[in-house]
């Protein structure tokens, strides 16, 4: 079956052990998580996990149901790249001596990056973008000697006009009154 990269968004209560509860659903099926980002979201008390994983659709749909089955999981969604806007952040730490002769402004402009800090020893660039854009800047800086490089997991928002988690929580809050 055809494999592709999926993005999974999971909204949970802010409790200990949620990460374990979600990750064990992947590990039980020997699915490798490509990237993972967790943080509080716009709804108070709700955390959002953004997970990317390469697999086929039936497996991912199965995984979504298994994640939602966990008691403290509020909602889980499965997306392909066309359904979301997504970004990663990367930091590149390069010896200042090696970049001093370059036109830093040109690098920044060409790659849509910015300079986070210039220190006599090192310079740190920051770049936000898709995986391949971050890779392009990496390749460009590589000849100058990259001392540290780090890339975040994917963060994503949907291209939909509806906010399904808000709708779900509103509907559930009505149940408590019944």
């Amino acid at each position: 079956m055809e494999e592709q990269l999926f993005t999974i968004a999971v909204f949970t209560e802010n409790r200990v052990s949620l990460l374990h509860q979600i990750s064990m659903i992947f590990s039980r099926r020997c699915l490798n998580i490509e990237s993972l980002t967790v943080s509080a979201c716009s709804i108070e008390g709700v955390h959002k996990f953004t997970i990317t994983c390469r697999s086929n659709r039936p497996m991912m749909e199965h995984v979504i149901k298994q994640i939602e089955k966990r008691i403290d999981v509020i909602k889980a969604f499965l997306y392909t790249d066309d359904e979301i806007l997504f970004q990663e952040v990367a930091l590149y730490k390069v010896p200042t001596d090696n970049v001093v002769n370059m036109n830093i402004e040109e690098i920044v402009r060409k790659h849509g990056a910015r300079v986070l800090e210039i220190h006599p020893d090192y310079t740190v660039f920051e770049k936000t973008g898709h995986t391949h854009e971050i890779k392009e800047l990496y390749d460009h800086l590589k000849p100058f000697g990259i001392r540290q490089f780090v890339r975040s997991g994917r963060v994503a928002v949907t291209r939909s006009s509806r906010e399904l988690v808000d709708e779900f929580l509103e509907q559930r809050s009505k149940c408590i009154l019944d």
Partner: protein
Amino acid sequence: MEEKITGSEILIRALADNGVDCVFGYPGGQIMPVYDKIYENEQGVFHYLARHEQGAIHAAEGYARATGRTGVVITTSGPGAMNLLTGLADALMDSTPIVAISGQVGSAMLGKDAFQESDVISSVLPVTKWALQVRRPEDIAPALSRAFYIANSGRPGPVVIDLARDAQVGTAVYEKQTIPFIRSYNSNPEPEKEAIEEAARLINDSKRPLVLAGHGIMISGAEKVLADLVEKGELPVGTTMLGLSSIPSDHPQYVGMLGMHGNLGPNINTNHADVILAVGMRFDDRVTGDIKKYAPNAKIIHIDIDESEFDKMIKCDIHLHSDARKTLEYLLPLIERKSRKDWRASFDVHRLVEEEQVMARELACEAPNGKMLMGGVVRKVCEAFGNDAVIVTDVGQNQMFAVKYSKFNKSRSLISSGGLGTMGFGLPAAIGAKIGEPNREVVLFCGDGGLQMTIEELGMIMEYGVGVKIVLLNNNFLGNVRQWQHLFFKSRYSSTPMVNPDFKMLAAAYGIKGADVACAAELDAAIEEMRKCEGAYLLNVNIDETDMVFPMTPGGNGVDEILLNESEYYKPV
């Protein structure tokens, strides 16, 4: 302001307020403050001391399965909690409501490899519906209330509360909790009206409908509406193993058990049905055989309260996400009265073949070598108890013969480890069932292998006078593995013959009466002796080790590719 009490006292009061009147457990260092409160027994929560934590949790499972109430287990930290894992996994697979409370070291010592410390929450998460560590006494009552709600609502399952020592000895005010609302967990979903109507239309238009009744019938209390539904539409109904006793065995629409060792009729006709109504069952691989060959002619309607079961094994045409009883009650008025006599009769053709070619030999009870056959023993025992007993099984051939040759008049009469197939489940589960249903006879069918896995629980029978009737189908072999070795491994009986103790003497050591039955001629009198005995009894029955379970659908076969004996496939005329 109300008086502060210790977390241990809060725990016992909260158990009582959650309707608990008995718990199964085993004390140890990090749960001693709780046992000190159990000693006072002021709240009427009676403690049954198991001989091993695994025995305690299987007993709680048996109690829960017999009564529908949540079974409660209490253990200490570390090894005590780790010994629960098998039972938790078993309860998760078989939708059994359990609340397990494990002691834990003080929170300052957590993660420092303290004596008898283990990472309980991380260990139990894959085998529980929910798990929580509690470190403060004021959190105990809300945690317990939530635990009982989660364990016994929606699709029931096991929950673990890991109780750090600080929570047990610290003090707080106890407030009785009401059942919480959990916004992320909908325990009582409503089925879609359009889907109900579409399901009814499919059933009404169907010429060859088949109902598959699972454990969900009994969990939701849908026995009566199931009977009403199948009578009204003349719908044949087969059950899964855990669905046994959800409809009486002699009900005119009942056509037998599904699955690898199920009856010919429902298995063969699964692939002739034009509509399948699957209720509270999960298309387990033992039920479906090769899923590519499963029910090719049927539209399938699936009722389940667990949404993750939809399309997991079998792609279904209609999903009804709700409780089985509620959904069947919506369906019932929409089902038209119809006669489907020819379709119902087609099951009897297969039944007669099975009766003649498989069951007659078993029911004769006697093998050529003078030893006995399991099927016949099971049937005689069940009939001696008027087919009214709660039948508990262990796992293996004993289980298959017990479920195939027992008959059931009442609901909640079959307690067996289905999904996990846990050997050693039987004895403690039977004890728990008898404690939960003291006015019913509880009969355990087990093998010599499984009995020895948890045989220490004879101690619970002795201590509390639990009147369980134990029928040991003793072939001095791990029979089911032997059967597979015979059929698929050239009869190389690797590690399956067993050198066994004298079970009657062993029972006697625990003050349990018993008898050895050497041959079929002695059987009727021995069963009668057991039946008349007031308390527990062990019947050690001399079984022919070459006895094998048939019909059988070997792994990888379609549901209708069935062996009648070791060399002959069933060929329906």
